[in-house]
């Protein structure tokens, strides 16, 4: 068990900056998620912590020891690869035993540890087979078992669930989280899937284009996104965004979206600085109410598409040329093209600066 500290880490590939002056600290026993789209630099960060890639700038500390110049073999860090990288010519048992064997553990201890970790991950029945014939989920477990068997200081997981089918992913998600809670293992987990990050992580670092966007607990990431990128990336269906200008009239403050205006006087304090500026209004689909009759303060729109998803229905509404998604109850029935009225729950409004994308509210 260990802590990981990263200071001002930078990595370039040619002219491309993969990781840009990144700093964070992972505490002992934490489930730490690095979330971001492909190319955000997630894998590069993991590879630098593992020692497979040399940083151009910055320091990496494991348990307060600088490890920049230590060979991967001596860092006591385990990693699972996206491709899993199981040794195809050996049995599952030999795969899992390998890290111990190379460290010259006594035979009976190896045997004990392998069987322990195999039963923990429910792959005891596979031990004598080669991993080639195992299913996607099983391979995943084997890879995790191989990483866990020597109880490394830090476990790095690189998109471990991206290659298994949706049903299994759901199951593995729960299992991994449970395992981590049980073992109190420090885990750094890279994923492009916001649902995975939200459901498993103690803290999430949202990355984009090598830069850290926000680092916080899932709840805050979801409810108080630091900028438009985070707001858009986290949550499905995605947040609705509407271009607006902030205007003042008769002591009231309005968001003017041309098709409609919204009174936001109650956020006076926070918005003071931004009067007259171009902003983006953001609201999550679950914070928009929809009704078939005209309601006070509601905005008129047209139904463009209805997606019944079983437990809920997502309605696509066009307010002139503004496209919005709204979550409705499962039994909500509405015809293509019919008129509806939507109302925003102003307690959950987000306002972003159009130029910088930073959250104002």
């Amino acid at each position, binding site marked *: 068990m260990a802590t990981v500290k990263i200071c001002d880490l930078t990595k370039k590939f040619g002219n491309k900056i993969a990781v840009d002056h990144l700093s964070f600290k992972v505490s002992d026993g934490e489930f730490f998620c690095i979330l971001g789209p492909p190319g955000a630099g997630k894998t590069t960060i993991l590879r630098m912590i593992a020692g497979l890639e040399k940083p151009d700038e910055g320091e990496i500390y494991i348990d307060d*020891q600088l490890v920049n110049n230590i060979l991967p073999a*001596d860092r006591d860090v385990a990693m699972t690869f996206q491709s899993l990288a199981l040794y195809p010519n050996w049995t599952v048992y030999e795969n899992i035993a390998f890290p111990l064997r190379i460290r010259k553990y006594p035979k009976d201890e190896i045997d004990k540890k392998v069987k322990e970790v195999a039963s923990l991950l429910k792959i005891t029945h596979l031990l004598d087979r080669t991993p080639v014939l195992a299913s996607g989920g099983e391979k995943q477990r084997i890879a995790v078992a191989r990483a866990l068997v020597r109880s490394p*200081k830090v476990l790095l997981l690189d998109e471990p669930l991206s290659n298994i089918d949706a049903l299994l992913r759901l199951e593995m998600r729960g299992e991994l989280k449970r395992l981590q809670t049980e073992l109190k293992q420090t885990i750094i987990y890279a994923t492009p899937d916001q649902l995975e990050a939200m459901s498993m992580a103690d803290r999430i670092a949202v990355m984009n284009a090598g830069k850290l966007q926000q680092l916080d607990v899932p709840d805050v990431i979801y409810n108080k996104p630091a900028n438009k990128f985070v707001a858009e990336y986290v949550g499905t269906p995605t947040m609705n965004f509407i271009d607006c200008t902030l205007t003042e009239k008769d002591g009231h403050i309005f968001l003017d979206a041309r098709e409609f205006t919204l009174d936001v006087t109650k956020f006076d304090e926070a918005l003071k600085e931004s009067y007259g500026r171009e902003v983006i209004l953001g609201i999550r689909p679950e914070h928009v109410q929809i009704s078939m009759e005209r309601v006070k303060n509601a905005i008129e729109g047209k139904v463009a598409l209805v997606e019944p998803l079983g437990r809920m229905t997502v309605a696509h509404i066009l307010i002139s040329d503004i496209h919005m998604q709204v979550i409705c109850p499962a039994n909500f029935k509405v015809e293509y093209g019919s008129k509806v009225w939507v109302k925003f729950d102003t307690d959950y409004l987000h306002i972003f600066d159009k130029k910088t994308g930073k959250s104002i509210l």
Partner: protein
Amino acid sequence: MQNKSTSWYKKPENFALLLIIPLQIIMNLVGLFPLIAEIYVSFTNWSPTSGDWYTAKFIGLENYYRIFFKDVQFWQAIQRTLFLTIVCVLTEFLLGLGLALLFTDNFFGKRFFTSAILLPMMVVPAATGYMFFMMFQKDGPVNAILSMITGQEIKINWFVFGDTAMFTIFLADVWQWTPFMFLLMLSGLLALPQDPINAAKVLGASRWQVFRHVILPMMKPLIAIALLLRGIEAFKIFDAAYIMTHGGPGTATQTVSMYMLEIGFRAWRLGYVAAEALLIVVAMLLFAWFVVRPIFLKRS
């Protein structure tokens, strides 16, 4: 975490160096050093019958002058070899592609037919030479079978006439190397993505149209590699042809390799042949750099 000092050979850079050093030594010893010696020898009139190489008389560019302005036989041999190369490679390509097209789906006996077609490629070229030498004798089986088919006695003396001798060399080469083209084309065809082909079929394209508009264009890079590799190999033509004709009758079937063997290792004019060898090496280097490299790099 122990910060032990790592042994010298465990450092990645050093380990890589250790692995590659034996190769460097042997390739430089037998590859590079002789090349330098050869450049020197090409400026002398060295012949092993008249003493060691360093005692030979330095004659400057005379060897090169003679190659370019006096040696008709050399240029004829080059012409002949190029002609043979082009004819052989094109025939092998067409036959190989045609055969490969028959093997893209499963049918009864596929494994047998594949193995049978590939067999000639695995015959030692010298043995191929002797096979064709036997078959095309005046009293050999080819004449016998031709007689049977036509019903009149045929006694062609294949190796006595230049054209027929050339033809047997052509046949032997095609026989031996069509399998290579077949294998290459087949692997290319099997590696093609099936979806575009199926897409063309669903859009209504006939078999020929699918081949002409979809398969052939997608095979282009592979065809380029195949023609090149085979062309380079065919230009080296020696083993089988030498055993069949020894370049005869006269010099009618003498290829570049045979000609150089004759000059260098029968007449022992090594200085002269070194100059010729260097010219060919330079020509090949230019060819490799400007033609082969781009195509090969694109592929891998």
